[in-house]
């Protein structure tokens, strides 16, 4: 069992790298789309809504498989790592755009008007008045989604990413023993349980006092 510990640990590193990449790029892209949408340019908004709907309705595994097995036909061969990263980042982008947008629209119109009438520009109003209020509202749904999507890094196994599950599965078939799989399962719990508990704490901390 100990023989496979280094494999599992290298899997943990890959999982963490992948998860961080997905979270940073996915949420940044989602926020960027939500801000673009607040400019209220009609055709652009239709496009944004379509892209968001698309990645909300497609199962993440289907997106991964599509990118990994589909793109080589047009002479682009993303690695399993890149395919998984792109797919899950797109999915997180879609969900976080939706959440940020809901947060932005929830700030009453009067606030916009009041801020603009005091001489703030559109950008200043957005940054100093609307977003701080919007963020508070978005935190609980955003943490939930982010955890759910980051757990999806395990899907990378299907396209041969050497993350935890991939390493554990191959160690299991090499050793004819389920111990590596149990180690992998434990690694996920060690990695994600603190995040889930922290999310619970953040949710209560940022909840509106009613």
């Amino acid at each position, binding site marked *: 069992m100990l023989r496979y510990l280094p494999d599992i640990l290298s899997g943990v590193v890959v999982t963490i790298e992948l998860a961080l990449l997905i979270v940073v790029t996915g949420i940044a892209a989602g926020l960027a789309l939500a801000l673009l949408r607040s400019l209220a340019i009609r055709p652009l908004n239709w496009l944004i809504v379509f892209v968001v709907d698309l990645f909300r309705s497609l199962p993440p595994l289907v997106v991964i498989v599509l990118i990994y097995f589909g793109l080589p036909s047009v002479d682009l061969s993303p690695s399993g790592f890149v395919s998984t990263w792109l797919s899950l980042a797109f999915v997180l982008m879609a969900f976080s755009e939706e959440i940020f947008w809901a947060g932005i629209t929830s700030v009453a119109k009067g606030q916009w008007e009041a801020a603009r009438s005091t001489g703030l520009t559109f950008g200043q109003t957005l940054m100093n008045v609307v977003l701080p209020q919007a963020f508070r509202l978005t935190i609980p749904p955003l943490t939930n989604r982010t*955890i759910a999507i980051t757990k999806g890094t395990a899907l990378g196994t299907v396209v041969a990413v050497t993350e935890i599950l991939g390493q554990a599965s191959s160690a299991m078939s090499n050793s004819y023993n389920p111990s590596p799989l149990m180690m992998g399962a434990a690694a996920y719990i060690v990695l994600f349980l603190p995040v889930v508990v922290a999310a619970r704490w953040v949710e209560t901390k940022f909840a509106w006092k009613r």
Partner: protein
Amino acid sequence: MIQTFFNPEIIAASWPIVVAGLWNTVRLSLLVVPLGLFGGLILALLASVKNPAVRWPLMAWVDFFRAFPPLVLLILLFAGLPFAGLELGGFACVAIAFFLNTGAYYGEILRAGIDSVPAGQVEAARSTGLSSLQAMAHVVLPQAVRNVLPDLLSNTLEVVKLTSLGSVVAVPELLYQARQAQSITYNPTPIVVAAIIYFLMLWPVVRLLSRLENRALAGR
């Protein structure tokens, strides 16, 4: 481009395979959604017992499955259990994994719904002579479900999407069938077709959810 991703001959050839997968996805969803709801209902009812000896283990259970990737759970059942002498088919493994995983999510949603019903409702119901079980079934749950309907629907959407994990343990659902067709034809068209089917099937639900969420925000 069209020859590669939307090849008409390959669409025609792989159509029966892909459609068979679609029906299996529908069947699988019709099995795992009620199963998850049932698991969630058990958890939510247990959580309404305000006893710390019940609540803490329950919270640990829910957090465990929120932290544990469903695919890992599925592989653990599918590839791990045979070592313990218990060989379940892919289909049974999917059913069990979904019962555990999605049950935890449904449980959290239903618990929030039950919490949203004011305590006065239970007290009023009890004072009219309903037993606590009757009060739960006839007074609290109907309101609880209505209060969290968008969340229930959103989770159900996720569950249907999650059935694509069945492809990893050889359950012949939509994605599995499409990949089979792809590997026979050496062409990604079947996967594109499967993606379009998923999109057409689930897009109306996504639209509906967006509307419900917007309405909930407007009502604040």
